[in-house]
């Protein structure tokens, strides 16, 4: 049904029926402004960052500027030859949607490196618009591109844009609205060898025209060894590059890039080992400890929890609920100790949201500044010992915000082995920001305990990574990453991203918090929890904790942070002493991933993996709790 409208999109035609929805797919290399163009066209907030690999899932939306069009954004790639899962996602989407108009977005100054993919898309006979984005930077470097001539040479529209300042977006919309004709199929001349390999492997008749891209996406290509595949792709890419260079020779001029050293003091400081380590520690101290821990988990939580919620909201809700609803059992569901509104909603809004919000704000600043790839560079050697490569800092750092989101982001890692190791480490030893905020709040008064807590967690992280990487077969990880320039983060963009992440988080957690409240209420009225808690009591006591900590630990099963928040509550009411606080905090930090993270683990890695790692996590957390308590009691350190 949808392939009949290809030629019916006419100039100036304003009649669009519901059936002729035109698909627009944004594609191109990482970090060239695809998500920003997506946002401009749809008026939505896809997350835009200054590091490769933010768009893990395909996001789509109706275009606000182009009625009757649906725009999709794809993860970045330099060609349709995928390495990582996310690149495979892009390839499949681009290969499947024959009728879509492809907006191939490139960084104008790096057009030479990026044009081969435009050529690849045109070989497939797709309708393409080449978007030369970041024209401001190209102009500054005195790069000259005659886009009219390039458009004639390629037979497709070529549009210059500066997405950050909205320049050229209207022009782009005009071109799309006028309809994109299917261009003449472009032919690249490959060495004879390439044709022969394709014929041999796919068993097709000689001289059947075949495209390398289609061949590589077919099962026939799986018969090639890694070396043969590398050789094949290299030869194909070189031929496309030659084709592109020959075109650019007629319409573009690129002044030689500077051959000087690394520019900028800050850039130097972030890339030199001896200055970068103190800088990373400073970011950790001021960003995480002072800003997220002190301001988010301290000042903001105090204000929202004590000055707003407990002073006004809870008394108000309790008063009216008790007045309107006569049944105590139903009252308990809504208010009182475990009420949906006084526990679930309060935890979500007053305890967790400020912490997660401040973390995401910090993370957005770091990612927009281009600091994360530098951190990846710095930590690559350490991560190699854990069976990961430097690129894994991105999911790991996100894990300090939200383990669920981070588990999805492990898709940017190349090998299955790395994805498994990263998922495990996220589940075991990376506390999410909600836990982190609560932990920082609970241990803030005793820096020594905080250091010990961080030390134990870091040791588990390192030991677990080291053991897994030693025992798991597979290819050694490789590190290769683009280093985007350091940029001053733009306030608008930082706020937009923080907002969209908080929005995602809130939609994700609020229902779970409320559901957990209901389950706890059910567990309480049926007496089921009393039974489980009684069963847990010996273990909890063995860890030296008061029996009151059992519910918090049990509820931690529904969400780690939920349990953490419960402990925070206990401590605030003076029910935990120093040693108990420490042990409880440690156990809850190591504890089961929340339900959401468990579900994502299952989705990405399968049931077996999710269940087995969950069991291992439970055992480790309990074991560490028992051990640490025994040591503390014996030595009397706390």
């Amino acid at each position, binding site marked *: 049904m949808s392939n009949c409208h290809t030629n019916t999109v006419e100039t100036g035609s304003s009649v669009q029926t519901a059936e002729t929805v035109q698909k627009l797919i944004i594609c191109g290399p990482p970090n060239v402004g695809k998500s920003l163009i997506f946002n401009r066209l749809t008026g939505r907030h896809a997350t835009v960052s200054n590091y490769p690999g933010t768009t893990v899932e395909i996001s789509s939306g109706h275009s606000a500027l182009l009625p009757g069009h649906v725009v999709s954004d794809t993860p970045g790639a330099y060609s349709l030859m995928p390495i990582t899962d996310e690149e495979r996602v892009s390839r499949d989407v681009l290969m499947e949607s024959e009728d879509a108009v492809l907006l191939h977005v490139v960084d104008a100054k790096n057009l030479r*490196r990026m044009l081969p993919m435009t050529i690849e898309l045109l070989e497939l006979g797709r309708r393409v618009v080449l978007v030369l984005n970041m024209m401001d930077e190209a102009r500054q470097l005195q790069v000259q591109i005659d886009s009219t001539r390039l458009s004639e040479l390629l037979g497709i529209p070529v549009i210059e844009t500066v997405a950050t300042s909205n320049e050229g977006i209207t022009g782009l919309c005009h071109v799309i609205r006028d309809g994109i004709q299917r261009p003449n199929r472009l032919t690249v001349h490959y060495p004879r060898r390439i044709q022969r390999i394709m014929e041999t492997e796919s068993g097709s008749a000689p001289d059947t025209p075949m495209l390398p891209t289609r061949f590589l996406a077919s099962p026939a290509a799986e018969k090639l060894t890694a070396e*043969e595949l*590398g*050789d094949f*792709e290299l030869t194909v890419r070189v031929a496309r590059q030659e084709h592109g260079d020959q075109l650019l020779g007629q319409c573009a001029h690129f002044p030689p890039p500077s051959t000087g050293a*690394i520019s900028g003091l800050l850039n130097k400081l972030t890339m030199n080992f001896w200055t970068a380590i103190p800088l990373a520690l400073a970011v950790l101290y001021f960003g995480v400890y002072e800003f997220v821990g002190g301001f988010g988990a301290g000042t903001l939580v105090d204000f929202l929890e004590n000055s707003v919620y407990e002073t006004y909201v809870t008394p108000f809700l309790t008063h009216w609920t008790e007045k309107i609803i006569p049944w105590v059992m139903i009252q308990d569901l809504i208010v009182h100790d475990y009420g949906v509104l006084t526990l679930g909603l309060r935890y979500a809004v007053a305890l967790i949201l400020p912490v997660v919000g401040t973390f995401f704000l910090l993370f957005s600043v770091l990612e927009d500044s281009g600091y994360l790839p530098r951190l990846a560079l710095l930590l690559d050697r350490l991560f190699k010992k854990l069976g990961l490569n430097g690129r894994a800092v991105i999911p790991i750092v996100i894990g300090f915000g939200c383990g669920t989101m981070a588990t999805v982001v492990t898709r940017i890692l190349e090998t299955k082995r790395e994805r498994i190791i990263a998922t495990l480490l996220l589940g075991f030893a990376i506390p999410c920001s909600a836990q982190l905020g609560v932990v920082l709040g609970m241990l803030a008064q005793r820096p020594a305990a905080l250091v010990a807590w961080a030390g134990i967690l870091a040791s588990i992280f390192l030991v677990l990574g080291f053991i897994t990487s030693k025992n798991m077969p597979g290819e050694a990880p*490789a590190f*290769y990453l683009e280093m985007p320039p350091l940029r001053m983060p733009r306030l608008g963009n930082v706020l937009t991203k923080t907002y969209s992440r908080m929005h995602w988080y809130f939609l994700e957690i609020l229902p779970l918090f409320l559901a957990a409240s209901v389950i706890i209420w059910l567990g309480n009225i049926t007496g089921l929890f009393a039974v489980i808690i009684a069963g847990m009591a010996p273990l909890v006591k063995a860890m030296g904790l008061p029996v009151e900590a059992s519910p918090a630990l049990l509820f931690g099963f529904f969400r780690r942070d939920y349990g953490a928040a419960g402990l925070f509550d206990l401590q605030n009411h003076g029910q935990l002493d120093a040693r108990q606080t420490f042990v409880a905090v440690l156990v809850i930090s190591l504890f089961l991933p929340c339900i959401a993270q468990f579900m994502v683990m299952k989705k990405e890695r399968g049931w077996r993996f999710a269940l087995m790692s969950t069991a291992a996590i439970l055992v480790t957390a309990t074991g560490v709790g028992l051990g640490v308590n025994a040591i503390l009691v014996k030595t009397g350190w706390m």
Partner: protein
Amino acid sequence: MEESQIGTGCTVDYTHNPSAVLSDLAKGETALIERFSDLAHVRKFLSLGILPGTSITVLKQSPAVVLRVGYSEFAFDRRLAGTVQVRRMPGK
């Protein structure tokens, strides 16, 4: 224009200019990529748009090799950088 002569990607001319691997170059040296000796890893370079004939400048060798390619910068670990054969270009 970069005066890059793009070959087939697999022929090497060892007779002229001294060849080296990427991880041997000194900081600040400029070179032309000649070939990739480990074809199993070549896709990692291709995925960043780095091909034979590309001119590169080494910005750092530690903790990983950092290159300027065109107007962008890239990092590779030393093992990967060791698979790239380059021809040194006369510096300024």
